[in-house]
C-alpha cells in the first residue's frame, strides 16, 4: 500500500488555482521530497495531505484513507510540520513537547516515552527547561522537528524543513 496517493489534485482559492491536476504516489518507507519554485503549490499540497485543506477536485489518500472523507483517521497516523511554524512562546520546550505528545497520543505513558525520545532528538538538553521565546530560530526548528518525529507517525509531512538559501 502506498503511503500517499494523489490523483488529479486541484486546489483553488476563489479564482486562483494553487494546484492544477497534480498526481503522484509515495511508497511506504520512502523519503519523498517535493521540490519546485516558489508559488507552485508545494505547501498547499502538503496541507491537503495533512487534512488542513480540502481538495477542490481530485483525490488524496494516506495509507488508503481519503483525506476528505476520513480526515480523523488520517490525523491519527500523520504528523505535520508547517512551513515557518512557531511554538507556544510562553511554554518551556519540555512543556511544549509534553503538550503535543498528549494531544497526538492521548495516553500519558505513550506521551512520556515520546517526550523522552523527542528530548533526545532535539539535542536541546537543559535548554528544554527554558521558555520557547528565549530560543533562536534554529533551536525552535530543532524543537519542532523533534515534536513532529517523536510520536513516530506512519507519515511525517515536513514543509520546507531546510530554509531556502
Amino acid at each position, binding site marked *: 500500500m502506498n503511503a500517499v496517493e494523489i490523483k488529479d489534485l486541484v486546489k483553488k*482559492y476563489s479564482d486562483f488555482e494553487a494546484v492544477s491536476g497534480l498526481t503522484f504516489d509515495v511508497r511506504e518507507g520512502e523519503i519523498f521530497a517535493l521540490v519546485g519554485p516558489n508559488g507552485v503549490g508545494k505547501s498547499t499540497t502538503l*496541507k491537503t495531505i*495533512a*487534512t*488542513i*485543506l*480540502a481538495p477542490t477536485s481530485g483525490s488524496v489518500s494516506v495509507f488508503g484513507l481519503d483525506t476528505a472523507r476520513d480526515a*480523523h483517521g488520517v*490525523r*491519527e497516523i*500523520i*504528523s*505535520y*510540520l*508547517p*512551513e*515557518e*511554524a*512557531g*511554538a*507556544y*512562546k*510562553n*511554554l518551556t520546550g519540555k*512543556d511544549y513537547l509534553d*503538550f*503535543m505528545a*498528549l*494531544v*497526538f497520543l*492521548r*495516553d*500519558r505513558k505513550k506521551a512520556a516515552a515520546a517526550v523522552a525520545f523527542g528530548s533526545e532528538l532535539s539535542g536541546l538538553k537543559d535548554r528544554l527547561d527554558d521558555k520557547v521565546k528565549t530560543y533562536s530560530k534554529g533551536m525552535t526548528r530543532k524543537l519542532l522537528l523533534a*515534536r513532529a518525529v517523536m510520536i513516530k507517525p506512519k507519515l511525517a*509531512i515536513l514543509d520546507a524543513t531546510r530554509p531556502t538559501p
Partner: protein
Amino acid sequence: MNIFLVLVKKEIKELLTLQVILSIAAMLVVFQVIGKSVGSQNRSTASRNGLVTVDLDRSALSRRLISALAEAGYEIKPSAERGIEAALAAPAQAAENSFLLIPAGLEKTVNSGKKSRVEFYSRFKKNASGLGPVLAASRTRKAVAVVSGELSYHVLERRVPGVPPALLRNPAPALEFAVVDGRAVEVPLSQVVAFIQSQTYFFPVAVFFIVILSAQMIMTSVAGEKENKTLETLLSSPIDRRLLVMSKLTASAVIAAALSAAYMLGMRSFMSGITAETSLGAAAGTAAAGPALAKLGLLITPSGYFLIGVSVLFCILCALSIAFILGVLSEDLKSTQAMMTPLMMALMLSYLLPIFIDLSSANFGIKFLLYAIPFTHAFMAPQNMMMGNTAQVLRGIAYQAAIFTVCVFYAAKLFSGEDLLTMRLKFGRKK
C-alpha cells in the same frame, strides 16, 4: 486522561504571562495607594469640624445658638476678636475655615419682632482641590439650618406661648411614599433611587471589564495561533476541533474572571476612599429604609442573585464566542484591535444607553437595538430582579443562550473546515 483539561491548562499557561501578572499586581497597588491616600485625606478633612464663633451679642439667645451648634457636633472655637475681619485675620484662627458672626443686639432685635441676621463666613483657598471644599460647603449648610431652626423656636416660644414650637413650625409633616407595582410604602423616592444605584453601581463596570478582557484574550489567542502557525499543527492532530474551541473559551473566561476580580478589588478600594465620607449619610439612610424597601420587593433574593450570575455568565460566553469568530477573521495579531471595534461598540451601547434613557418608555427601535445585543440583558438583570421582572431576566438568559449556541456552532464550523486558514477580513488594503 482528560484532553480538554490538558488543552485548557496549555491555554492558561500561554495567556497568563509574567507581564499580565505584574500588571495586575501593579494595578492593585496603584488603586490601593490612591484609595488609601484619598480616604485618609477625606477623613482628616471631615474631622475638621471647627466653627469659630464671634459673639458680639453675648446674650441668652446667642449662647443658645452656640450650644445648639455644639450639640449638632460642631467644635466651637470662641473668638475674642470684636469683628469678623479681625477674626479672619487672627493668626490663631489662620487654619480655620468656618466662622459665625452673631451681631450685637441680635436678641433685642428679634425679641422686638424685627428681622435681624447672623452671618456665616467660609474661607475658600484658591488652590483648594479634592473633596475638602465640597464637604466644607455641606457642613456650612447644616450649621445654617441648625441656627435658623433655633432662632425660629426662640421666636415661637416667645410669641405663641402654650403651643409646642415644633407643631407651629411643621403642623402637618409631609410623608413621602414610594409606589412600586401598586404597592405604596412610606419611604422617600430618593432613598429608593439611592438604594438601586448603590446595588448596581459596581456591577456594570465589572461586567464591562470582564467582557472586554476576555474578548481581547481570546482574539489575541486565536489570531496569535494563526500567525505563529501553531494552529495548523493542532488542526492536523486527532483532537476533536470542538474541544479546541471550548478549551480556548474556557481558559479565556477563567483568566478574565480572575483579572476582573483583581480589578474590582482595586477599584472598590479606590472608590471607598473617595465615597466613604460623602456617601455615609446616603448609606445609613438606605440601611434604615431596608424594611420599607423589602416591602416594596426591591431587595434581591438569593435566587435573584443566582439568575443575575447566570445572565452575566452567558454575557461573557456570548462575548467570547463572538470574539473567537472575530479572531478567526483577523488577518494577524495587529488587526485584532480593529476587529474589536464592533464588539466594543455593541458593549458601549448596551452599557451606556440604559444609563441615560428609560428603556421601559423608549421607542421600539431603541428597545429592539438594545435587546438584540446579548450584553444588555446582563447589564439590566440586577434592576429587573429588583423590580420583580424575573420573566424578563429569564427571557434574556434564553436569548443569550441561543446567541451563544449559534456562535459556538459557527466557531466550531469554522474550525472544522479550512475557512479558519483561508477566511479573513482585510482592512486598509486595496485589491
